[in-house]
């Protein structure tokens, strides 16, 4: 006899608790290893923030293993980094110099922290004249640990592991957009011209060519929306006032408003030249997302959930994503037919997708813990310092 009440059954977990814990163990150990130095310091604030981050990252990884889903847990981490990075960064700026604006004195002494987004613009001038067009210091100093060499080294190491997945697991700016894009239940802007996907490439070419000619980091001077949440040259002229107005408008439009309305990472997908630069590494990166044509029913759900518009009908027919895929896993998690799968290049599509996913996630989450985890710990630390009581 049928029951009169209908119950909604929850989908069975992907993996048992025991196996999930076992798979999480290496990541837990890695987190402890990364944050071990903080436990040797006498400052309890550092230890508490490190412990919180270790727990946070390990729990999210466990949930990835347990549920078999990647996107929603990755997003929690990523949005946390996106919103907490400015907290930590701005707090440290105010503590150091009382303002977000960079006085010219700091640029003369090379105390400007190096931002990886400058990197594509440095290449041509450095190749032609061995000159770095950034007011930083080459080696870390006491007043500027984020030196040019250290940050480029960090980018290089992480890019070898992540490739374009940098945009999904490392970039501390992308999380802000991802957060705003997650707020609305349904997008107000549903149709976006796919040609906008090419704009980041054009902007990349534009800033690289112009920076080489003018010998200044043009993107940083004129186009970076994230100066609104980091630091910017002090306003002392009409030109600098115009530059400030531009970055505020770009931030408001591309990072806040459009993601809210479209549920896409509009700055990342349609503007960011560094994202275009990182896309080049998708050509050689071993991990990718593929579509099993035998299972795919062309429902286009993957295309609608992709935050980067990195899937087109033609690419699905070819069984691939576009070059700007950041391997966030949204399409894989949403595909009802299991057609969208994680893939290790060189292996048969769909044969061992979970194995490919595990290989990818161990590397990506290790980098995320090292880099994003550090940002989170720093932000928590700064917040704890502002509390009236101390540990």
């Amino acid at each position, binding site marked *: 006899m049928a029951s009169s009440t209908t119950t909604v059954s929850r989908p069975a977990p992907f993996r048992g608790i025991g196996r999930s814990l076992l798979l999480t163990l290496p990541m837990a150990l890695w987190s402890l290893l990364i944050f071990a130095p903080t436990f040797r310091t006498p400052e309890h604030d550092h230890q508490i923030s490190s412990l919180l981050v270790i727990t946070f990252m390990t729990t999210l990884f466990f949930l990835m293993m347990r549920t078999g889903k990647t996107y929603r847990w990755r997003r929690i981490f990523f949005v946390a980094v996106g919103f907490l990075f400015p907290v930590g960064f701005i707090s440290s700026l105010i503590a150091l110099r009382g303002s977000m604006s960079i006085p010219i004195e700091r640029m003369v002494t090379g105390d400007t922290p190096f931002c990886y987004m400058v990197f594509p613009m440095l290449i041509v*001038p450095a190749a032609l004249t061995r000159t770095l067009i950034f007011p930083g210091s080459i080696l870390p100093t006491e007043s500027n640990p984020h030196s040019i060499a250290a940050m480029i080294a960090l980018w290089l190491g992480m890019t070898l592991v992540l490739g374009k997945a940098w945009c999904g697991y490392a970039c501390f700016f992308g999380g802000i957009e991802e957060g705003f894009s997650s707020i609305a239940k349904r997008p107000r802007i549903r149709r976006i011209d796919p*040609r906008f996907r090419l704009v980041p490439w054009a902007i990349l070419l534009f800033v690289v*060519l112009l920076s080489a000619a003018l010998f200044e980091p043009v993107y940083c001077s004129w186009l970076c929306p994230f100066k609104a949440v980091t630091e910017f040259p002090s306003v002392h002229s009409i030109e600098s006032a115009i530059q400030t107005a531009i970055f505020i408008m770009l931030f408001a439009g591309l990072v806040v408003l459009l993601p809210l309305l479209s549920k896409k990472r509009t700055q990342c997908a349609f503007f960011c030249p560094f994202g275009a630069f990182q896309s080049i590494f998708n050509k050689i990166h071993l991990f990718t997302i593929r579509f099993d044509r035998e299972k795919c029913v062309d429902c286009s759900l993957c295309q609608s959930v992709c935050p980067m518009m990195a899937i087109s009908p*033609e690419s699905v027919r070819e069984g691939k994503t576009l*070059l700007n895929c950041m391997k966030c896993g949204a399409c894989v998690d949403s595909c009802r037919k299991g057609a969208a799968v994680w893939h290790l290049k060189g292996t048969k599509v769909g044969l061992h997708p979970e194995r490919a996913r595990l290989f990818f996630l161990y590397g990506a989450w290790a980098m995320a813990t090292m880099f994003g985890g550090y940002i989170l710990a720093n932000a928590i630390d700064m917040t704890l310092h502002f509390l009236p009581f101390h540990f």
Partner: protein
Amino acid sequence: MSAIHFIPIPAFASIGEALLLGLTTGPVCLASCGPAVVPWMLAQPSSVRSQSKQLLLFLVARLAGYLLFATGVWVLGTTMMRAFAAHTWTMGAIQVFLAASLLVFAAGWPRLRRHEKQNAELVHIGKPIRQKRSGALTLGFLTGINFCPPFLVASVRGAQLLTLPATLIFFLSFFAGTAVWFTPYFFLGLVRRTQTCVLVARITAVLLACWYGISGISILIARLIHG
């Protein structure tokens, strides 16, 4: 004519000097012409052969600009050239013309319609694109008369030579030295073209046109205000 100090220099010495000046300052030409050359070349038909043809046309037009400038240098003299060089009207006007040219050529390149296919690879082998307007001569000439720092150095030396043919040969040698540095641009022909690539080139050209346009207009406005 302003006072000009003509310096008798053996022909081979001035050729050598100009060639060396061109070679050493060539990176400036490579970088400063990049914004005009690269998007334009990326929108051209794919083969290395046709690209080379277009680039050679560009260089010939650039040489024409150099020689016209050389003639002006010799006739007007160094004092006039320095005043002329400092004359921001010309710089502003050249930038506005360059912006307009880039916009016109970008408009003339084939359009990627909305429904056209986006392939999985950003750039891969596609059909050759037919160009309505090439732009080699205009862009070449505009970059040839642009007042970049090595050009001004060359103009000071060139104006000191005895005869007009000597000045022209000086600038020809200077041009040869800088042209060597354009070799990397020939390799842009190896980049396989699709309509996607052309669209990226068009958007880049429009962005650069905006930059040059705004820069040129602000120079002209500043000149108008300050006199």
